[in-house]
């Protein structure tokens, strides 16, 4: 029974495909997976928008949207109808073709990235040997579409927003990739299902063997999440769309359904990168405790994904936007050195496995944590240097 529930979607797909002739089966299977992913994440996009507004409202002691439907739960439907029926305005001076292609070019790589992620046991749409490389390869294509959107609008705000977005994405792609390297080193593979498999099993039959419960894994997770926030242009790294400075950045000249596509691609990118974080650091679809293994694997995956998205919303509700120089300093002077140190720590962890004396496990833990904590302290202090201690304004007493 548990196994059946776990493999519900896999057997459903096989059952549906079995009606077709032999030759059409692989193609039909692929199409089914694609439509399942697109359908599931489009629904999740709708749910996330309403939950985000609700949670942000509660964080600011407001109620959030509560007018459309019971508790405002039909708000996404209202938003969708509004987006679809709005006039699609293309600026007169715009480069029409590039302006049209930019949202399309953005949504394709994001959807491709979603295909890589193992959603549950035997539930990976495309199982590539170099899955994580594929993820980053298609992820880097999104920068181009942002540039296309900003440049083709022929608007200074759009161009400034696109330039900011590209500079930010290039800067934060490096810590993003480097923080995954430690996981790849320990798992010894680039394939995402195998990385999940490497995190299965339990220490002392009770504690999960997830990467996040090791010093390098925790540091890597934090670094990855910070870089992922910047990569998906979310607050506090939402400089490309800073509405108080440059209207809406590269989205300024978009309206109607093209805007909705951009918006959806942004959230899909968020889901993809959160799913990658779950896969790499939080044990993928593994249950946290052995006695909870009766819950289906895909339920665990989506529960973890939801938790991470809640974290993103929480951060967005708390932190103010960074300044551009702070953004760059943070990426190059803090995240990059920390992720390089993290790789060294991972190597330490790997090679200190040979020591088998009593207390070796604990000592290894403390040592690795110290090697990470000391640079964290000093790099953090260096970041704060050059900041004026206290400002006195002549006319603002």
């Amino acid at each position: 029974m548990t196994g059946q529930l776990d493999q519900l979607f896999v057997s459903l797909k096989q059952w549906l495909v079995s009606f077709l002739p032999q030759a059409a089966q692989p193609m039909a299977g692929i199409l089914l997976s694609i439509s399942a992913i697109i359908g599931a994440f489009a629904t999740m996009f709708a749910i996330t928008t309403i939950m985000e507004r609700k949670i942000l409202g509660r964080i600011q002691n407001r109620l959030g949207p509560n007018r459309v439907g019971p508790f405002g739960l039909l708000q996404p439907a209202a938003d969708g109808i509004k987006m679809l029926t709005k006039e699609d305005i293309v600026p007169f001076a715009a480069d029409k073709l590039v302006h049209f292609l930019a949202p399309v070019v953005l949504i394709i790589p994001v959807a491709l990235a979603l295909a890589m992620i193992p959603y549950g046991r035997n539930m990976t749409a495309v199982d590539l040997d170099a899955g994580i490389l594929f993820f980053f390869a298609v992820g880097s294509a999104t920068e181009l579409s942002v540039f296309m959107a900003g440049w083709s609008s022929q608007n200074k705000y759009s161009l400034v927003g696109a330039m900011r977005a590209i500079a930010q994405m290039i800067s934060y792609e490096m810590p993003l990739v480097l923080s995954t390297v430690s996981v790849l080193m320990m798992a010894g593979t680039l394939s995402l299902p195998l990385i999940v498999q490497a995190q299965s099993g339990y220490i002392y039959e009770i504690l999960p063997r997830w990467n996040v419960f090791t010093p390098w894994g925790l540091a890597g997770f934090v670094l990855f999440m910070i870089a992922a926030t910047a990569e998906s242009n979310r607050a506090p790294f939402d400089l490309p769309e800073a509405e108080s400075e440059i209207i809406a950045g590269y989205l300024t000249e978009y309206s109607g359904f093209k805007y909705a596509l951009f918006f959806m691609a942004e959230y899909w990118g968020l889901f993809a990168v959160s799913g990658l974080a779950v896969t790499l650091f939080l044990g993928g679809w593994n249950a946290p405790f052995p006695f909870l293994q009766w819950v289906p694997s895909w339920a665990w995956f989506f529960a973890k994904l939801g938790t991470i998205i809640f974290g993103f919303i929480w951060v967005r509700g708390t932190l103010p936007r960074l300044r551009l120089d702070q953004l760059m300093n943070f990426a190059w002077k803090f995240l990059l050195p920390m992720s390089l140190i993290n790789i060294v720590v991972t190597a330490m962890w790997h090679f200190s496995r040979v020591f088998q004396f009593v207390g070796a496990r604990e000592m290894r833990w403390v040592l690795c944590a110290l090697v990470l904590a000391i640079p964290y302290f000093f790099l953090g202090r260096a970041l704060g240097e050059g900041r004026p201690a206290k400002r006195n304004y002549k006319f603002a007493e």
Partner: protein
Amino acid sequence: MLGTGLIKGMAQTAKNFVGSYQGPERLVTVQYPEERLAPKENARNFPFLVFDGDDAQKGLRCVACQICEKECPPKCIYINKSKDKKPDYIGKPQFYPATFDIDISVCMSCQICVEVCPFDAIKMDKVFELSTTDRFEALLLHKTELAKPNEYFQELHPTEAAEIDTRFAEEKLKAEAKAKADAEAKAKAAAIAAAPKPEPAPVDGSIPTPVAPKTI
């Protein structure tokens, strides 16, 4: 150390998030169409015309002096002066506005018309639910829509209205006393001059005016 401030901030927002479900008194939002806050004493948006008594047409304080029309910065007041006269609150015959229109789509709520009015005839209103589907005719308010009774003004601004009312009452008393004195003097003079024709002054002679439909 780096990150302590972040944790402090995150704790604060977490407290807000949980607390908003625990204590409804944290939620400061008023659910507008169902719940309403009482308007503030000094709230103002668009001008209206004050009339005394029951008849909007008869009791209108405005004497069509057109100062407000001239002073209005966006020029949104349109007045046509009447040909005939009607008595004001002290019984003095005055002109009255044959038409008095305010285009509230142009009005910028500056209150200058109120400041310059020597007759306390135009005051600022607090109504705000003025949305219509017609942006031309429906936003050009005519005299019938603008005229609102003095009781309404007393409700909006009790102190100011009370002050104006006592002043008007005093002026009226003074005017009546003067009229009486004048009448007596005239009667005396008339009695001295020629006994047969003692005609009193028309204190409350009412001119028949068309009664406007009451809208407020």
